[in-house]
């Protein structure tokens, strides 16, 4: 059975940084049985551990790239590195882009690895998600479900 993981990244107490976690919460109970759902703070080695145990992964995080707040991007990280500049504002000492590249270097990047990001507006401590990101939650959740279904054993 292929191991599929969906990983929501973020800090729930830092405004839009919570995006990945909120999407993960929205996905609870809606993914097929073959998919594991994991929430992490964004500490890179924790992400590496999650990736190392998967054949296929979907990662969800907030980003700062100069797009409009709430804008959704989808990257095929198995094919090429993430545009790193976008992640210099990832809220962790050693970012998501670096973690993915480290996994690639160490040969532990899953063969299929999709990254969804939503453009953040604010990382204010204690703030809720910005309205634009609230709107993006369901769309990303639906796209994650569709991607994960593509990888279900029934499709294999």
């Amino acid at each position, binding site marked *: 059975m292929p191991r599929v993981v969906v990983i929501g990244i973020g*800090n*729930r*107490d*830092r405004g839009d*940084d919570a995006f990945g976690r909120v999407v993960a919460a929205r996905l609870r109970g809606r993914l097929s049985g073959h998919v594991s759902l994991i929430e*992490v*703070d*964004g*500490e*890179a*080695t*924790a992400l*590496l*551990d999650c990736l190392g145990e998967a054949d296929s992964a979907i990662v969800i995080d907030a980003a700062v790239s100069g797009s409009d707040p709430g804008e959704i991007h989808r990257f095929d990280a198995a094919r090429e590195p993430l545009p790193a500049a976008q992640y*210099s*504002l*990832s*809220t*962790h*000492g*050693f*970012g998501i882009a*670096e973690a993915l*590249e*480290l996994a690639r*270097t*160490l040969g532990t990047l899953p063969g299929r690895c999709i990254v969804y990001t939503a453009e953040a507006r604010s*990382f204010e*401590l*204690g703030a809720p998600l910005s309205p634009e990101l609230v709107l993006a939650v369901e769309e990303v959740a639906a796209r994650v479900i569709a991607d994960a279904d593509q990888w279900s054993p029934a499709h294999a």
Partner: protein
Amino acid sequence: MARKTIKVDNLARVEGEGALTVVIRDNRVQSAELRIFEPPRFFEAFLRGRAYSEAPDITARICGICPVAYQMSSVHAMEDAFGIAVGGQLRALRRLLYCGEWIESHGLHVYMLHAPDFLGYEGALEMAKDHADVVKRGLALKKAGNGLMTVIGGREVHPINVRVGGFYKAPLKRDLVEAAEALKRARDIAVDTVRWVAGFDFPDCTRDYELVSLQHPDEYPFNEGHIVSNRGLDITAHEYDQHFGEQHVPHSNALQSRKRDDGGAYLVGPLARYGLNFERLSPLAKEAARSAGLRPVCMNPYQSIVVRAVELVYACDEAIRIIEAYERPEQPLVPVVPRAGIGYGATEAPRGMIYHCYHLDHDGTILNAKIIPPTSQNQATIEEDLTAFVNAWLDLPETALRHRCEQTVRNYDPCISCATHFLDLRLDRG
């Protein structure tokens, strides 16, 4: 007048968010200012009006790297207020949880954040291209710590099994024994790590620090003991506020801690713990330190990476010892009866002593909370290090000089906000 400012706008490889400005005038460092953005202030406000029982889970969210130290300090402070003592296997389990956190945190810092400084890499990713085996070793260490956290804490980060009085559920011996197998391999890696980092090239920089840490008569300190210093301080956590005070400095939104008597800076963290508690390390950890050429007191902050590696050996060793002696307690907690009062707790986070104080109502409602993390205690010392050491490197090319400044900050494994990430470094040469 020749003026130069070094600014690091985005200091990588620190846990948190901050900025550093070094001002140089007439080829001398005039000032160094570390600005940090600190979440404990937010959490102090958030805790007011909450039940004492919520504090462990709320405070654990302050930091993704050292949640145990935050939550356990709050637990100890609550128990202090309620007059509860937790002993036996429950106390041992708490030490075990600290072992897990230290292994995770030190493993991450030594390998992924600090070693690249000494080997001339931009970061762990670049280092992995040439030294994949080294990075895998670091990840294996960290994973052993994660495993321990999962068995006792319920999950890898932000343990959810901790409560005032003990735990929600005591782990099974067989689960801990399984984790111990990984810890034995981790201990071997840790011993190799000490040897490896001891061979790095260290700047010849020492200062006469006032070292401050917990000290316990029988054990290397995690969560219990007096607060002592190498200059004769010996107090309980109850007296912390009489001896240490926090002040606002204009350049940082964090409070900067100093000694009340002379306004001096002090140092918490691995160098302080090690220098004040060398004799309480396990024989294997002591031997590793001696083989690495470390004396029982080390005042070179760049060698903190070696001391962290020695503490990794100790944490693995101590975890294995605790697991071997473990017998699952019949009850996972001691009874808790709230009462009005003030509770104090000081414990050792991987990056240094952390202090909590709570004012509690008769039913255990939190009226006031005060949390002093290690990085705000070290902030003044980091600035003094920069002022003292950077002069010798002013002739270096700009990139190398900036790197030295960043490395000097990274010596402290600063948890600059425990929540978001970068340090903005500026070198002001005028």
